[in-house]
């Protein structure tokens, strides 16, 4: 299974990639929002792990841009977000085509693995 991890925090992407590669996933990393969006626009990945909180061009910018170009639905996105996001915001995000799961930070591996396999 091909995974794309989009997060500006290199510590997180390196650790996730090490662990998920050990679990047999084929991981690609992007530490930049715009680069991540361009990769997502190609629709080549089975799952995308997307951090909402990134400087300059964050997860919400990526979602809005892909939605505009009608490419959001070509992805299966697992969102990482702050633990205090409201239930309304969660439900709005999950209504969008292409977003399959939302995980609150700090994320735990068992939650992530079950989101990937869902």
């Amino acid at each position: 299974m091909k995974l794309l991890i989009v997060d500006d925090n290199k510590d997180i992407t390196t650790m996730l990639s090490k662990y998920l590669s050990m679990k047999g996933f084929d991981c690609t990393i992007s530490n930049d929002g715009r680069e991540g969006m361009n990769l997502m626009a190609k629709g080549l990945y089975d799952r995308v792990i997307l951090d909402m909180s990134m400087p300059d061009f964050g997860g919400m910018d990526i979602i809005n841009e892909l939605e505009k170009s009608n490419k959001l639905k070509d992805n299966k996105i697992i969102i990482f977000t702050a633990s205090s996001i409201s239930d309304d915001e969660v439900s709005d995000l999950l209504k969008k085509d292409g977003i399959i799961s939302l995980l609150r930070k700090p994320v735990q591996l068992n939650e992530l693995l079950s989101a990937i396999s869902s």
Partner: protein
Amino acid sequence: MDLTIDKNNFKIENYSKKSIEELKKDQKSLESEIDNLFDSLNELIKNSKRSLLSKDTQQDKEFLIKISDKLENKINDFFVATYEQEVIDELGQNRLDVESSLRENTGVKNLSEYFSHFRYTSKGNQLFDTISKEEIEKRLQKVMILKKL
């Protein structure tokens, strides 16, 4: 030092208990423990493949599961420590932005625009969970009164 962190008891108040240096130290230590566990795990997987038909297989498998569990726990702790750092960094940046607005004498309008924007950042949500809107308005008014003096 015990680096185990219970996600269920994870609260924003805990950030103040550790300095960013301490968190970075925790993170480095976890990273090195995790690397060692990855090495052990890879070594074990190699050995297990060699001894698939031997009587040691069951023992290898149990050991593999044990190390794998330990690795996952350490990675989870690493994510918590990294997240704490992210929040502290962002709160620090926000403090600088507020101070700069005050220095530039741009007034309540800019500050209130700033807080409106901040409310929509993910970490901002957490801060606003702990400080009520009324409290922030009260503080802003106080700042403006002080600036007029």
